[in-house]
Structures are given as structure tokens and as C-alpha cells.
């Protein structure tokens, strides 16, 4: 047992950070949950390499990094198809793969979606800070020294407790989420939908919104028709806690889908993305078109349980 040097970052790409499923229980200190923007992909990636679902992995963005493998290990890449290659040869996404010392992992770029997850058997070894290995870039803690990865960084993994029984395990291709450039997100109205006039609510549901380039891990910013809260109201409300998926509407009437780096906010939330669609919100990319569809709380519960059953089934299969 112990930790092994496994990955060397040759080029970091636009933003590569260490993330797990997030940091919970510190909201009263203003600490957001952070964690993988697409938790579904992280969980499947970890199952593919025999890790607990909450193990830390690398979140890769857009063009992805270039990495040298320092020790034989099993990896899997899930999430947006950044077109991974080993020593220049394309390899499939959503499959476990044995990597040999000296292999170079690189990426050719993306189709749709913007974030991929590199899971490594054993999990990325960084100190646990407030219950999580996720990187908080605002306060610069967690992950690797609280910062994005840089050229020359060497990452360790824990020695794996279980190895995938099969040499190769793949996630059923029909179950891979579709990160469409025209994404439909299912929402539940509220918490402040009643502050918006009917016309704004109809516009919100019936319009197409475009993801803007100033989007990041804190939120996907949208541009589209004005979702106006009405003349008689101030732009802001008393600051209150927020969750990833909450859709806030600031004074400029352009919605923002909050992601994992937000903890409180002082703007009205017209609706909230259901937890079963949160991974799709985490893949929104500048230029993508978004449309919202209202579902009931009951339906959101059914969809979430279906997702959990799918993951649980795959976990059983992968363990054979």
C-alpha cells in the first residue's frame, strides 16, 4: 500500500483540475460544493477503473492536456469526447484501458460538450480538505495546491484496492449521455418563479438561449430574450444559499445556470435544473443552444432514480 507517481503533465490544456463528487457540510462558511461539473461521467469513469465513485479524477476542458504515464495503470476517459489518443493512436472513450509506463496520452479536441474526466485506478492522491479532494479555485485549496494543473506537475495515485476484473470494461454505448449543441434541460419552477410575470415565464420556457463565452465552472451564462422580473421589483433579493442547477436572473434579464462554485446569490432564481440533468448543464459550451422544459417534482424523482439504477446496474456488471 502507498502512493505511486503515475501521471506527469507535459501540457496542462486550458483548465485541468482535480475533482471528486464535491465538498459538503461547509456551506455555513461560504464554501461551495465544487466537484465534477458532470458528476455522471466521473462516477462511470471511476467504476470503469475499479474505484469508488467518489474517487478523485482529473477534469479536462476543451483541448485537454498532454500527459506522460509514469506507472502501469488502468485509466478511463468519460464525459465530452475530446478524442483521446495514446502515443498518437486514437482510443475509445468510456472504456477502461491498461496504460504502460512511458505512454503519452493526448487529446485531439472536442466534438460536443466541453469537459472530460480522466479516472485512474486507485484515484488521484491529493490531501482531503474539508472532506473532499476537489479543487476550489476561488480560495485556492483542495486538489493540487488549490490550483489548475501546470506543466511539470506529477500526480500520484493511491495503490488500487480493487483492479477491474476484466482487462477491458466498456460502458454501454447506448447509455452514453448525448451532449448536444442543442440541449434540452428539464427544470422545476422556483424558488422565485412567482416573482416573474407570466410573460417572462412563457418566454423562459418557449425561447432558445445561447451559452456565452464568459461561462465557467461557476455558471453557464445564457443570452436570449429578456426574462424580466417586472418593473416594480429591484434586481436583487436578500442573498440566500444556492445549488448547482439554480437558474438566476440578474438585472440584465439574462439567465445564468449556476454550477458547483457558487454558494450564495442575491438574484431571483426562476427555475432549477433537475438533478438527473445536472451533468448535461455541466457540459454546456459557449455557442450551445439551450431550451428549458418544465417537469413535476414527482417526474424529477423518477428520472433521478432511473439514473441511479442505471449506474448501480453498471457497477454490478463491471464487478464481474
Amino acid at each position: 500500500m502507498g502512493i505511486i507517481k503515475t501521471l506527469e503533465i507535459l501540457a496542462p490544456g486550458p483548465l485541468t483540475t482535480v475533482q471528486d463528487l464535491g465538498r459538503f457540510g461547509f456551506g455555513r462558511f461560504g464554501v461551495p460544493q465544487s466537484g465534477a461539473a458532470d458528476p455522471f461521467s466521473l462516477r462511470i469513469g471511476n467504476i470503469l477503473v475499479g474505484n469508488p465513485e467518489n474517487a478523485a479524477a482529473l477534469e479536462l476542458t476543451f483541448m485537454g492536456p498532454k500527459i506522460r504515464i509514469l506507472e502501469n495503470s488502468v485509466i478511463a476517459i468519460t464525459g465530452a469526447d475530446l478524442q483521446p489518443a495514446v502515443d498518437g493512436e486514437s482510443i475509445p472513450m468510456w472504456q477502461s484501458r491498461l496504460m504502460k509506463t512511458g505512454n503519452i496520452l493526448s487529446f485531439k479536441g472536442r466534438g460536443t460538450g466541453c469537459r472530460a474526466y480522466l479516472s485512474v485506478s486507485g484515484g488521484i492522491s491529493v490531501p482531503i480538505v474539508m472532506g473532499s479532494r476537489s479543487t476550489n479555485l476561488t480560495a485556492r485549496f483542495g486538489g493540487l495546491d488549490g490550483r489548475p494543473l501546470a506543466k511539470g506537475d506529477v500526480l500520484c495515485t493511491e495503490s488500487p484496492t480493487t483492479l477491474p476484473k476484466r482487462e477491458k470494461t466498456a460502458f454501454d454505448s447506448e447509455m452514453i449521455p448525448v451532449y448536444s449543441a442543442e440541449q434540452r434541460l428539464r427544470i422545476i419552477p422556483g424558488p422565485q418563479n412567482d416573482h416573474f410575470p407570466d410573460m417572462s415565464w412563457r418566454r423562459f420556457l418557449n425561447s432558445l438561449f445561447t451559452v456565452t463565452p464568459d461561462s465557467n465552472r461557476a455558471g453557464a451564462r445564457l443570452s436570449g430574450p429578456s426574462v424580466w422580473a417586472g418593473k416594480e421589483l429591484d434586481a436583487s433579493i436578500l442573498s440566500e444559499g444556492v445549488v448547482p442547477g439554480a437558474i438566476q436572473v440578474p438585472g440584465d434579464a439574462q439567465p445564468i445556470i449556476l454550477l458547483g462554485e457558487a454558494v450564495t446569490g442575491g438574484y431571483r432564481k426562476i427555475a432549477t435544473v433537475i438533478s438527473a440533468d445536472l451533468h448535461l448543464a455541466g457540459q454546456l459550451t459557449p455557442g450551445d443552444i439551450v431550451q428549458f422544459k418544465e417537469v413535476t417534482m414527482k417526474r424529477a424523482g423518477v428520472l433521478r432514480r432511473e439514473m441511479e439504477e442505471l449506474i448501480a446496474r453498471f457497477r454490478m456488471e463491471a464487478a464481474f
Partner: protein
Amino acid sequence: MLYHPPRYRVMGDRSLLVELGDHIGLDVNTRVRELAAALELNPPEGLVDVVPAYASLLLIFDPLRIDLRTLQKEIAHTLVTLDPSRLPEPKILEIPVVYGNEYGPDLEWVARYHHLTPREVVSHHTAHVYHVYMIGFIPGFPYMGELPKILVTPRRETPRTQVPKGSVGLAQAQTGIYPNPSPGGWQIIGRTPVKLFDALKTPPALLEMGDRVRFYAIEEEEWERWAS
């Protein structure tokens, strides 16, 4: 006003907003603090995080372990059995601030806005004991109030892309401190060398909701002594 019973609003399928009132005030904020403390002491099954704020608490839960109705019932029960005497005593902290110049680039503007001298702004800011209403926005950032009426100031028209660590700002009737560099729109009147957030400490934030803070002015020459 205070809400009896509280108003519940759902924020998606895994969080519930519990509103205990509709204003910034010690009455409602103390009740928020009491409920937060009770939930921390005795958390309902499936509750994963609580974000207390001015007049509300956001309860983040695991919908696979608890449903909304059960959670709401547990909150209602907790509220009627609240025991304020079990609240921990709030801390009282004195925080040194270097006011003006590059430490407080908006001090002159704030003074002109209120037809005061910069020195008068400082003496008003340091004359009051502020209540920490909530920690939010970024880790460890205290929202404190209320400012004396003479210092109530609008936010900057154009927010700064980067506010330095330790900056002390004003926004409406609130005063706050940026524990880390961040974009921000508050009027910056000074800076403190005191560290407000340390992820490796327990608790990680210097201030918690309910604490009391008084600022006092120090000279630029004293910064180094405080920073070490």
C-alpha cells in the same frame, strides 16, 4: 416581518429553502442561527449541507435518502422545539484596518458622496459594533451590518475584476471583507492584514454568523507586524 410558520420554496429536487422572514434584522437572523445550530446538532437523515443566510436557510439533501415532505416535517418539528439557550456564545472580534490610499481606493469617493472627510468616514466605520449576518459569496466572506445611515453607500457602478485579499468594503447598509482576491463591486475603503479564511483550520473561517465585529484603524507601518 417574521414568518410563523416558515415559508418553504423548493430549489430543484434536492434542496429546500426555508424562509423565516423577509428582511435584514437581528430578530430573523438570530432565528436562522438557532435553526442552523439545531440542525447541525441533530441533522435529519439525508441532509447533506445547510447554507444559512440573512433570513433563510437552504437545506441541501439527498433525494434518494429523504423526501421533501419528510424533511419539511422535520424542520417544522425542529422549529417548535428550538432551545436558544444551547446556542454557542458569539465571538467578539476587533479587526485592524489600514484605511485609504491604495489600501482603500474608494475612501475618497465614499467621503465625497456623503459630504464627509475621509477621516470622518473612518471614525463612523470604526464607531460601531457590527453583527455578522452570514458568510457567503466566497469562502469566509462575512456580510456585516448595519452601517450607520450616514455611511449607506451604493455599490460601484462598474465592479472591479480583481479586489485584493483583505479588502474592507461597503455596499448599501452592509460592510464586508474579501478573504481572497475576487471580482467585486463593493466600495473598498481599507484593507486588513488579518487572515479571514484558512482551509486547513477548524473552523476554516475566522468569523461565523452571529459574531460581532469592531474595526479599528492602524497605520500602514503596522501592516507588517499584523501580517506576520
